[in-house]
């Protein structure tokens, strides 16, 4: 891919802008509430911009799926998620905002006890690990600048750590806005050019396998449903919770999520078809592309200088906005949920803020190690999502919706056995690979199903026994 000097200048300017924001935003932080939740002052447009940009981070993973399988990407990465977003907007958002807490483990302590908070914090930390996104950025920089993967990851992490440490959530909001504009513009500009250069729908029909143009993509129903279940991630997503807590009033979260769904819908159409155009052009011999980096290849081939720079910056911004938010959430997990609420309850605001800054380094460090260990972004999503969801969803949903007495032991057991089952199932699968190197699970069942089922059953049984015992 040929990148002109002007494109490099645009990318460098973007990073300088992030540094400048990081430098000036510190004066906006007056207390811990500002640092964690921007003083709970998010208005509707700010809520939407920060939610849309943060939530969408796995652009290369989406490229990989749409390149390899076509429209099924929209079904599994879009449609199922919209349904869960709607559920979140109508049934959870307002309750979360009204609780006026800070994190998901806060909710677990409210519903159950401190032990549930502690265990929930660990799973929460796993879920916000931005390893998949740091790997994405590393790959992008590796291709753009030719740097080694670890150097790319290191450089990106330094910039992100700088503005996140200085501005906390306020810094994230300001940078999210820039990133929101760049990601929308970047993704939207490529589709009209692809249609003009390669041709309309006929080009896709001629050059893609039939399955690419079906919603199921030739996948088994079970695999589609597992991806559908992964959408439940939203119900335990710390980024969603954090933005609901930070809203200025009770109506903003619901309205904001509904508007955000509109943005995601438009955005998902663009990303899915960009990946499909890349695959079709590749099959037609007009482009040499690989699945993981298909967006970079098609952009490099289609876009003129300046536009290419803007697209690449948009691509980086999409991932960057998620990396910073997730890193900050991981740090809040360490400082607020563990340090302040478990180990040092009388810690001052300043001590908690300092612990958060150390937490940013710890979270980023953990993610970097994982990113260098795993090779596929999609595999990493799947693994983290499966373990985290099978641990957290059941206790959280029971906490919000079950009116009867709730047992803390049921919550803890459900988290341990649910995630333990998923993990064991997964390990078994990876110890028994088939001839193509894919894991073979017991009875062909994906790990999330038994994990969620065990989590649910354990919760119900233990809750009944323990609540009876309490009486």
């Amino acid at each position, binding site marked *: 891919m040929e990148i002109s000097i002007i494109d490099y200048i645009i990318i460098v300017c973007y990073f300088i802008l992030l540094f400048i924001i990081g430098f000036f935003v510190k004066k906006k932080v007056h207390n811990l509430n500002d640092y964690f939740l921007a003083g709970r002052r998010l208005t509707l447009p700010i809520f*939407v911009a920060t939610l849309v940009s943060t939530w969408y981070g796995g652009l290369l993973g989406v490229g990989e799926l749409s390149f390899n399988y076509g429209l099924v990407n929209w079904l599994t990465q879009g449609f199922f998620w919209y349904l869960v977003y709607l559920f979140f907007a109508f049934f959870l958002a307002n309750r979360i905002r009204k609780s006026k807490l800070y994190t998901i483990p806060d909710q677990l302590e409210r519903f159950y006890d401190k032990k549930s908070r502690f265990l929930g914090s660990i799973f929460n930390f796993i879920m916000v690990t931005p390893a998949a996104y740091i790997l994405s950025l590393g790959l992008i920089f590796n291709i753009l600048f030719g740097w080694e993967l670890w150097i790319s990851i290191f450089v990106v992490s330094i910039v992100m750590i700088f503005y996140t440490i200085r501005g906390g959530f306020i810094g994230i909001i300001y940078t999210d806005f820039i990133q929101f504009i760049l990601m929308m513009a970047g993704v*939207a*500009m490529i*589709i009209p050019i692809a249609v003009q250069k390669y041709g*309309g729908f006929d080009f896709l029909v001629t050059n893609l396998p039939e399955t690419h143009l079906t919603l199921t993509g030739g996948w088994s129903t079970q695999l589609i449903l597992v991806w559908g279940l992964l959408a439940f991630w939203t119900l335990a997503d710390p980024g969603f919770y954090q933005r609901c807590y930070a809203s200025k009033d009770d109506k903003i979260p619901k309205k904001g999520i509904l508007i955000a769904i509109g943005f995601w819908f438009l955005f998902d*159409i663009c990303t899915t078809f960009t990946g499909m155009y890349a695959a079709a052009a590749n099959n037609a011999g007009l482009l040499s592309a690989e699945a993981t980096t298909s967006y970079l290849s098609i952009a490099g081939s289609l876009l003129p200088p300046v536009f290419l720079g803007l697209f690449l910056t948009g691509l980086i911004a999409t991932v960057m906005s998620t990396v910073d938010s997730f890193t900050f959430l991981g740090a809040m997990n360490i400082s607020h949920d563990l340090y302040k609420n478990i180990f040092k309850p009388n810690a001052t605001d300043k001590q908690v803020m300092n612990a958060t800054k150390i937490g940013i380094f710890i979270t980023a460090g953990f993610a970097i190690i994982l990113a260098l260990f795993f090779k596929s972004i999609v595999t990493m999503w799947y693994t983290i999502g499966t373990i985290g969801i099978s641990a957290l969803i059941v206790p959280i949903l029971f906490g919000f919706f079950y009116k009867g007495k709730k047992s803390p032991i049921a919550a803890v057991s459900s988290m341990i056995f649910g995630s333990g089952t998923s993990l064991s199932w997964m390990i078994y699968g990876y110890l028994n690979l088939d001839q193509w190197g894919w894991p073979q699970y017991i009875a062909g069942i994906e790990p999330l199903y038994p994990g969620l089922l065990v989590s649910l059953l354990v919760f119900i049984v233990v809750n009944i026994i323990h609540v009876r015992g309490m009486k």
Partner: protein
Amino acid sequence: MDPANLLILDAVILIIATIILSYFFIKDIFKKKKKPIKILKKKKQ
């Protein structure tokens, strides 16, 4: 009509929606805050 035109329409709507949201975002960020000193003075009176 070629369905690809709908893709272009999708991209155009995305850009317009982004511009509108950005306008309101900037408006909110630079909105002047009420001055708390005046309220305090009133209370004292």
